[in-house]
């Protein structure tokens, strides 16, 4: 009997693959459905209390909207505010709100919600970005469609941070269970989720703006780069939001089923020096190490040469971008001379990095190049994020580290002496403050100064800027080339 059962089961298994052979499309053929693959999954839906990029990537601009948003070129444009004015002393912002906007739970969106949302950042949020709201003194409801924000002092950074999750609009009736039930005004609502697998977004029927091209969007989460690529190759998904294995890009470029878009991000891969401690408290040592690293060769090794060499903490999509990558050309001889001058010829350094592919391959290049100028580097990969955060970021227990800094305009971290790179320069702090308070023109001029000063001080070694490489089926249109905001913005997508 056992044998007969076995034979039947065997027959079933042989027949099974044959059954589905006819339907080669694994992704739904429904033209109104899109499936996008991501590497990092949101742990929950509450980006007010959970750090990291995965939640706003899925929800910002798609489910939650702010008063303003960032367009793909990095400009601040209206969203729930139709327009805004700034007082001459740059401390009072008057926002005129779009009429007829409703939250997913049916509640109307008014200036009361603006007040509620902005003030709630100070009281209920726990993530680091919340500090951007500290500058707000008060929020007044002038009338239901007119909100007035008064700042303690002028701040360009504040308006910019409104384009991030910090500016997301919430309803007092929709914050009971943010971790599981997000309620926003956006074109999509969260329909369902399967942990470890996917989140399904469905078009909001009551949306105030243009109806999205896809009524259902499946966000598929696939951590393994090969599995992510296979899913696209085998029709499991339509788009890979950001390629995490650069070596695989050519196979998509040579396949006429797909289009490959390469742009930039806000994500600088930085080799941090522990500026507060010897030997990196000596500017000559920092400059020597910067001169001794061949960044082009490093980028070729670590990320298949796909990134951008920037030489500063400023990505090309910021208004004050200048190419500073030539400031420290690869020059081992000069590096050696500088070290000799500083009297630091027998250095041995601890490089403590996250155990992530880009960091490990970068570290190996750095270690071998520094060996050429007589500096010994021991590489210690640390479990990321837990151990790296504790030992390097919090306890400052390192000489060198290599980490991606993904936040927009995070050049301001060089104005915080307590930050893990321990860079302390009152001149830079003053420039940053003046830039924040001034007109847009003054801001650009001052920020350029900051970037130049940091470069002159070799405050860190900006190895390269991460590229944003998106691969999609040919039919998907409207994908943004650059990843400049926190959001993977679905609103501009279409199909051909």
């Amino acid at each position: 009997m056992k044998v007969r059962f076995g034979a039947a089961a065997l027959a079933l298994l042989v027949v099974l693959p044959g059954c589905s052979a006819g339907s080669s499309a694994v992704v739904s053929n429904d033209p109104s459905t899109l499936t996008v693959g991501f590497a990092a999954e949101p742990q929950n839906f509450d980006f007010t209390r959970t750090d990291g990029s995965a939640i706003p990537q899925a929800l910002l601009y798609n489910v939650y909207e702010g008063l303003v948003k960032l367009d793909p070129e990095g400009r601040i444009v209206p969203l729930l505010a139709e327009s805004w004015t700034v007082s001459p002393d740059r401390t009072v912002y008057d926002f005129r709100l779009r009429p007829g906007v409703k939250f997913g739970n049916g509640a109307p969106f008014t200036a009361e919600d603006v007040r509620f949302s902005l003030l709630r950042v100070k009281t209920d949020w726990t993530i680091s970005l919340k500090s951007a709201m500290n500058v707000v003194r008060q929020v007044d409801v002038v009338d239901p469609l007119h909100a007035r924000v008064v700042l303690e002092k002028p701040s360009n950074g504040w308006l910019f941070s409104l384009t991030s999750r910090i500016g997301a609009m919430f309803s007092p009736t929709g914050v009971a269970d943010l971790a599981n039930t997000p309620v926003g005004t956006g074109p999509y609502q969260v329909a369902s989720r399967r942990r470890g697998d996917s989140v399904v977004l469905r078009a909001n029927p009551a949306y105030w703006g243009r109806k999205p091209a896809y009524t259902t969007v499946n966000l598929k989460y696939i951590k393994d780069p090969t599995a992510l690529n296979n899913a696209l190759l085998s029709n499991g998904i339509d788009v890979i939001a950001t390629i995490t294995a650069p070596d695989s890009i050519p196979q998509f470029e040579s396949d006429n089923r797909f289009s490959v878009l390469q742009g930039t991000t806000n994500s600088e891969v930085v080799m941090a020096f522990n500026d507060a401690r010897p030997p990196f408290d000596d500017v000559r040592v920092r400059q020597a190490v910067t001169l001794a690293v061949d960044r082009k060769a490093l980028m070729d090794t670590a990320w298949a040469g796909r990134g951008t060499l920037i030489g500063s903490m400023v990505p090309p999509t910021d208004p004050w971008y200048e190419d500073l990558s030539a400031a420290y050309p690869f020059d081992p001889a000069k590096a050696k001379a500088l070290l000799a001058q500083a009297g630091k010829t027998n250095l041995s350094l601890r490089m403590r990095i996250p155990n992530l592919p880009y960091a490990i391959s970068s570290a190996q290049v750095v270690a071998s190049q520094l060996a050429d100028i007589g500096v010994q580097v021991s590489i210690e990969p640390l479990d990321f994020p837990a151990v790296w955060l504790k030992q390097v970021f919090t306890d400052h227990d390192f000489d060198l580290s290599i980490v991606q800094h993904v936040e927009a305009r995070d050049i301001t971290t060089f104005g915080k002496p307590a930050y893990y790179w321990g860079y302390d320069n009152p001149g830079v702090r003053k420039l940053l403050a003046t830039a924040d308070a001034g007109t847009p023109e003054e801001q650009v001029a001052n920020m350029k100064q900051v970037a130049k000063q940091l470069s002159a001080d070799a405050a860190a070694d900006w190895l390269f800027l991460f590229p944003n490489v998106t691969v999609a089926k040919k039919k998907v249109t409207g994908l943004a080339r650059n990843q400049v905001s926190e959001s993977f913005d679905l609103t501009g997508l279409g199909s051909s």
Partner: protein
Amino acid sequence: MTGRILRRAAVLVLSVLVASIVVFLFMAVLPGDPAQVALGVNATPELLAKTRHEFGIDRSLVVQYFDWMGGVLHGDFGRSYVTREAIGPQLVDRLGVTLWLVGAGMLIAVVLAIPFGTFAAVWHRRFSGTAISGLSQLGVAIPAFLAGILLVQVFAVRLRWLPSGGWTPPDQDFGAFLGGLVLPALSLGLVQGAVLTRYVRSSVLDTLGQDYLRTARAKGLRPYPALLRHGLRNAAVPVVTVLGLQLTTLLVGAVVVERVFVLPGLGSMLLDSVSSRDLLTVQGIVLVLVVGALLVNFVVDLLYAVIDPKLRRSS
């Protein structure tokens, strides 16, 4: 028989207790602060302290352990630090996926191994028998994840017959569920089947050499009927032992295969929770896995007695 069951059950409970303490202590000495990971960079010391208090990780280890075990005994595994969800229902959900995978893998393994192993034993002097032995030797050498990657390349990427990964619950779309289960189950089942084939072969070969079978053959029975009537029960004892051991290795193999095929099972949940220092969740998963492995051993122990009457009498 009852005494045997009771004794075994006592050992089971004791093992679970010891395992729970070991798991708990391992988690406690792991470097990295769950509150820091949850809050990310720039969290203030006050906020960190508040969050540690919220998580209950500012209490003594003994209090934390008894609090956790007390909850578990009532079916409450606590709330995840990271997802803010109750862990118990998540565990059940994820375990469901893993059980489907392991079950289907085991089924494939058994279905392959019993006929092929028996055939290889009966015809061990012929070319066909040797060929099966050789093939199974090859199968033993291939790790399940490699088999998985190869299957994906052929059936998903090249032929596009089956999905390269992902999970559809059976009650949502049964066809898609089966389609998604085939490749991962095959990559587990083929490898385990190869291992099992070798055990079945040697066990049957052993049985074939026994006097009573020679007698049966001498009385004119053909080899297969003789085996079926007189030998199968004897050949089954070592096979059941190996099957039990293999079930535990299958659980481990499933962890890797879940990664390759992006299945939301216990394995992928475990890996994610470890990296985000979601300690309560890790403790819950490991406890479930340990209990699972111990239960399998317990059942195998009892099965001996059912299959082999000699063991029943000796206890």
